[in-house]
């Protein structure tokens, strides 16, 4: 039982003091699973609400404002409604894969959430290959989308799933390479160490020009990775109806829907961690109060989430071949050049540190 799991140091120590080591690990795992499920639901529902409200403000509307204060419970009410709905499906669907698909999507999102450093202490799964783990896990989600599209026996869903597959395979490269650019500075894949390095200045400041380019590429490919507009090829409601989840209803649809928002949060959280120093406050102004880190972290992440929403409600959708052109002809070459520039900067010690 040598998995580096810890919620906060106090709970961890307390559990290990009252129980034998093996039992304590198992209990701790359960607690962590429950806590993260809670975080998952709360963040997912909150982001759904935020998206609706923000999109309304972009579109000269008011948005949901009836359930709870300013409509804050609206998405909870919607989730309850979806829970009570009938689960329909096509007759000739591959039942096993059809039912399996939503869990792939949601489990990959949940697993990625585990390595996100919310604060110094509140960081469940701090493994030494953190970034690598995130990239690997976030591409499992696409299997769920492919399975869902293929097994629901609907041509629109199939087209959507295939588009999603093409898209994720391509943009996975850019995500990996742009994060790799930043890892040249930190020299470590472990998320806690990446944050530690940024005590001398956030990486976007340390790496200046190539870091900004890497950040832009990361945000573009991150938006594509989460299947959000302007890269929502897999759903493309004006072309494919609802894309890969055409045949899903009720809670199975809600799983896809929640996972999309959690993925958006994860992409924003990675960007906040790698480029903006996660829970670190600017210039260390609240260093004496470590628990304030959660607010800095969420503040940074939600600003990036807002940026992605801004993209979504402004831009038209790309066509599927233009999507690939953007990746293979623009982002990838720029990215490779960017890595070389970053390597030179790190080699010549041109990084800006305070």
């Amino acid at each position, binding site marked *: 039982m040598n998995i580096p799991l810890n919620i906060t140091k106090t709970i961890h120590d307390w559990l290990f003091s009252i129980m034998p080591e093996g039992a304590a690990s198992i209990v701790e795992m359960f607690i962590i699973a429950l806590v993260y499920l809670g975080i998952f639901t709360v963040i997912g529902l909150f982001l759904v609400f935020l998206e609706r409200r923000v999109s309304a403000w972009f579109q000269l509307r008011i948005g949901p404002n009836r359930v709870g204060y300013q409509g804050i419970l609206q998405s909870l009410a919607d989730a309850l409604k979806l829970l009570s709905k009938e689960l329909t499906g096509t007759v000739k669907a591959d039942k096993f894969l059809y039912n399996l698909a939503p869990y792939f999507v949601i489990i990959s999102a949940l697993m990625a959430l585990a390595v996100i450093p919310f604060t110094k202490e509140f960081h469940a799964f701090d493994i030494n290959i953190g970034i690598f783990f995130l990239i690997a896990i976030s591409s499992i989600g696409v299997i769920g989308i492919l399975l869902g599209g293929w097994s629901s026996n609907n041509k629109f869903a199939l087209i959507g799933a295939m588009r999603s597959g093409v898209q994720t395979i391509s943009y996975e490269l850019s995500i990996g390479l742009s994060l790799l650019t930043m890892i040249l500075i930190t020299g470590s894949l472990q998320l806690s160490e990446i944050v530690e390095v940024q005590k001398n200045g956030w990486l976007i400041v340390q790496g200046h020009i190539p870091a900004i380019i890497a950040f832009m590429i990361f945000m573009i490919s991150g938006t594509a990775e989460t299947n959000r507009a302007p890269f929502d090829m897999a759903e493309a409601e004006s072309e494919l109806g609802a894309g890969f989840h055409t045949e899903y209803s009720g809670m199975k649809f809600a799983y896809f829907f929640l996972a999309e928002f959690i993925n958006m949060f994860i992409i924003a959280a990675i960007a906040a961690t790698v480029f903006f120093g996660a829970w670190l406050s600017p210039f260390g102004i609240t260093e004496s109060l470590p628990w304030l880190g959660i607010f800095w972290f969420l503040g940074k992440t939600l600003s990036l989430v807002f940026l992605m929403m801004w993209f979504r409600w402004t831009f038209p959708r790309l066509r*599927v071949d233009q999507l690939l052109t953007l990746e293979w002809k623009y982002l990838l070459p720029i990215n490779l050049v960017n890595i070389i520039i970053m390597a030179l900067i790190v080699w010549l010690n041109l990084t800006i540190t305070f």
Partner: protein
Amino acid sequence: MEQRTTIDKSFKSEPYQINMGPQHPATHGVLNLLLTIDGEIIQKVEPDLGYIHRSIEKMCERDSYQQIVHLTDRMDYLSSNINNEAVCLVVENALELEVPERVKVIRTIIGELTRISSHCLWWGIMGMDVGALTTFFYGFRDRELINDIFEETCGARLTMNYNVPGGLMLDIHPNFIKRVKKFIVHFKTKIPEYDKLLTENIIFQKRTKGIGILTKEDAISFGASGPVARASGYSCDVRKYHPYSALDKVTFNEALRTEGDTFARYKVRIQELWESLSIVEQLIDNIPEGEHRVKTNAVIKLPKGEYYQKVETARGELGVYVISTGTKSPYRLKFRSPGFSNLSLLSHIAKGGKIGDLVAIMATIDLVIPDIDR
């Protein structure tokens, strides 16, 4: 051997068919397109009509001429006032009835406002079809102002039935001129915003430039009209060549482009917004005083013969062909609707494109399904 062939067959790629519609977000109504697709590439588009056929032409043979007018509201509901005008003009021409100048000017103003409102809606839908959902609300914001003007003067927002043979049902509302002037000022600041948000956007330009090219020859041979034909360089504006109502008193440019692609069709409509706005601006201060209606017989009987009148709706050329045998209702009434001929070229220009291209092309053809089915 038998088994071998089935395996070979199962690994051969072949085109498949997919039903786009009748309930599909991009078909703007109940149009069914049977697509033959190879992967993402469209090989064939077969429009399947008839889901909203209400036999308006047959109903016209039953109704009196005053009653026919209100049926035309339900054809191309986005340019309902121009449709009304077409029927009224054909009846007035047949009766050799001279309507007052005031009526002509008001008809033209409301017609052009209808065109602006239709193009506003189209702009919103165009953005939505290529994926920018926000444009929909910005387009509707400006459209609502026109609809309010209509509601105040005509009583209804969409199916106005404001024209009657011989003039207008009511005189304009006292607030009409004030509101229209306010709208002109408002809208002049909004069209540049449309350009900023969508026209100049790189993604939008990549999505539309060079897509769905229609040559001038094809436009003529398919009988295209309106912005679709004008984007291919075919100068066919009925307002220019056969001016009706007060359109011979105003100066405006016919929006023409030669590229013939989706972006050209888009730009033609944006230019038409400016042109229509300038027509309204020229006329709004010069509404002559006078009667708003000439008295006609309660039962209108057209003299025996055949009559034809064409007008330019927001979508193109609408023709009304009436055969009268001298009774109170027409023997036969045929509408030449712009949407039907414009739809016929969809298969021709969408071939070889992607599904996303088809959606963009359909958005710029600006289909209104009740106009096609009638």
